């Protein structure tokens, strides 16, 4: 090849550059597509490993595309990406480079990106610009990212208390409305009360406080969990059924004044073992509404909305973390029948005698929705409504 020919080829290649994507971009795009293509049980791992290496090898150029590729609907792929972010940042740091703060900030501000990616970017940003905290967090009080929201609320509370403005009560009440984590909700409710205000924790969480109950049904050996007794598909709380030991069981009206809307089934239905029970709540929506039904229970639960199962967890007496069971569904406009099945096993230990539930209907951040529930006498009241909030049990909580 002559010198002239080589020069002509190089010139031609350079002329093509604007017409095709940069090779680096192509590699990043291809690697991200491979990582996002991983499936369950390790399917795609053969290709994902090399793709991860290829992505990380691009260094800083791959950081923002990697963050942008996060998709909360694919947590498996997200973790390939999450670890790649760490590796890219480390590679850049080893080379004495830092991620571009302006790009990170723009990314954190853009709510179209995945909350987990935005929080990762926020933390990266803080490593080089601590002032970003005060600049950005005020805008995240109602953020989809639970971590950004939590940080924003903590910072705002600090500001409110330091400034001690005349509007402190209103400021706290407003902040209470943004809180989602139980510890922050409780803390803010107390501070509102201490400042002479009043908020309803139960309404904020959207607890079901009025329900119809029926039981016990037989669940000897835990088998009742899989048996769909008639109330599981009930459209209304009517009728009598053959319960455990052939005893007739009927729906009974129940309500709770507990701040966290706990229904104690030992008190309401009796201390049964090897038993199943149902709670039915009628939830009224003004329009079709995507919801999360979140349940706290120390025993097995099944959540059914309008005849469709949303969630099931068969575990007994291993603790009752708040919101541990989450079913996702959509309320139709008008009345919706929400059925919760709760099962009790036959453990004999003193600590294994409880069965209870708390159930709430909320948005995907855990926040309140403008929904109503139907009381036993047909009245419509807000979710979380407690008829007699002065009952001692509320204070005990």
């Amino acid at each position: 090849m002559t010198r002239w020919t080589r020069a002509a080829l190089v010139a031609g290649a350079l002329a093509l550059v604007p017409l095709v994507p940069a090779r680096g971009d192509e590699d990043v795009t291809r690697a991200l597509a491979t990582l996002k293509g991983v499936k369950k049980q390790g399917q795609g791992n053969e290709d994902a490993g090399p793709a991860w290496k290829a992505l990380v090898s691009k260094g800083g150029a791959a950081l923002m595309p990697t963050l942008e590729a996060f998709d909360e609907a694919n947590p498996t792929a997200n973790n390939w990406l999450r670890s790649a972010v760490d590796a890219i940042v480390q590679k850049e740091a080893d080379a004495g480079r830092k991620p571009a703060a302006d790009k990170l900030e723009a990314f954190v501000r853009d709510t179209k990106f995945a909350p987990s990616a935005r929080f990762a970017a926020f933390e990266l940003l803080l490593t080089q610009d601590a002032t970003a905290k005060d600049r950005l967090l005020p805008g995240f009080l109602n953020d989809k990212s639970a971590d950004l929201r939590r940080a924003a609320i903590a910072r705002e509370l600090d500001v409110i208390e330091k400034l001690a403005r005349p509007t402190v009560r209103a400021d706290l009440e407003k902040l209470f409305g943004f809180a989602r984590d139980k510890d922050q909700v409780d803390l803010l409710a107390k501070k509102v009360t201490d400042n002479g205000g009043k908020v309803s924790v139960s309404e904020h969480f959207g607890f079901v406080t009025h329900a119809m109950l029926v039981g016990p049904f037989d669940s000897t050996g835990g088998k009742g969990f899989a048996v769909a007794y008639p109330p599981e598909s009930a459209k209304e709380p009517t009728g009598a059924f053959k319960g455990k030991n052939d005893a007739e069981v009927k729906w009974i009206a129940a309500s709770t004044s507990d701040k966290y809307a706990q229904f104690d089934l030992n008190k309401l239905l009796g201390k049964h073992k090897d038993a199943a029970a149902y709670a039915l709540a009628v939830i009224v929506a003004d329009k079709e509404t995507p919801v999360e039904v979140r349940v706290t229970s120390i025993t097995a639960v099944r959540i059914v909305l309008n005849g469709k199962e949303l969630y099931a967890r068969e575990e007994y007496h291993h603790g009752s973390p708040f919101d541990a069971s989450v079913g996702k569904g959509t309320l139709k406009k008008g009345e919706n029948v929400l059925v919760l099945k709760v099962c009790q096993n036959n453990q004999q230990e003193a600590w294994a005698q409880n069965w209870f539930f708390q159930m709430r209907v909320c948005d995907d951040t855990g926040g309140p929705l403008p929904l109503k529930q139907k009381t036993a006498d047909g009245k419509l009241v807000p979710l979380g409504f407690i008829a007699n909030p002065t009952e001692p049990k509320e204070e005990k909580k």
Partner: protein
Amino acid sequence: MNRYLLTVALAVGALASVPAAEWAQFKGPNATGVSTDKDLPLEWGKEKGLKWKAELPARGVSSPVVFGDKLYITCSSGNRDDRLHTLCFDANTGKKLWHRQLQATGSTAAHPKSCMAASTPVADETGVYALFNTGDLAAYDTDGTLRWYRSLVGDYPTITNQVGMAASPILVKDKLIVPMDNAGESFLAAVDVKYGKNVWKVERPRDINWVTPLTRTVGNVTEIIFDAPSGLAGYDSSTGEKRWASKLTRGSIPTATIDGNTLYAPVGGVSAIKLGDKGPEGEPTMKAKDVQPGMPSPLLYMGKLYAVNGQGVVSCADAKTGKTLYKERLKGAFSASPVAGDGKVYFLNETGSCSVLDATADTFEVLATNDLGGETLGTPAIAGGKLYIRSDKALYAIGK
């Protein structure tokens, strides 16, 4: 001797004097808790006897593991305890080599004393395999490259244990053995170390179980011995075939220890169970009724059985006869299992105080008590002549 031969001889001599740096899994070699290292540390403190100290980003109750010159450790953090950290340090200098994070894909419910970094990772010459209580399982190469990742809860959605999981994975040749006894879909699985896919997966009873599997060789079979509330079972590590089952033991928290074909299981104190080719043969051959493990696992070392319960009562018995040698109380509560080497037994309490007992004595001889402070629930590791202790905030390499 010419210069070349002298150099080689010196190099070989130097290598021979360096203890093998391998404590690759929970409680070290086959979960015995015993190291063959010599010249292990006796006395240390916050300001003395430390080879190095490194900050950790978050809490964890898992143990550090060491393979070659790499030390790996896991932590978990966040308001929901949903950030899962794996870190690698230079075991000799404490330099942090890499830090990778995952987002929990399973439930983060656990007893408040535990956390999502409770299972101890397992390492080999190629890297580390980290299992978190959330069912997130990752393999990293020695340089921090993510070799593969699995969300076990994504794969098997009914997995649940609101007390929190803690059984640790082990390696058998080219298979990662993953114990996943829980209240939902329970299984024992072998995952290929290259791509993280199931080689075999066998159904298990739905029990919560914190026991780590052990191994032994029977003929040409490497057998996995797995204790659980439902009983003891032996599996062929190549196929997952259950070779035998026994109701002699019903483990749930502490892990037994094995010496040849004798299993020292935490049942009725600690009982010695002779294992034949088809599992336990007859009744226990020895019962050390006073050796009562609590959460920490029992230890067999220099012919003696040791245990400590949650309240700090240390018990020691002759491993052949079961005869109680002593039963004494150490200060504080205990979660970490005792480990031993160089004639010393290390008992680490939950607040950073480690008592060193003389393993050569038949009486309760405390050689030293060393205080680092902090919350120390994870079992220490011994490798390269050093003792590694992790607290909720820091990692300590103790020794020369």
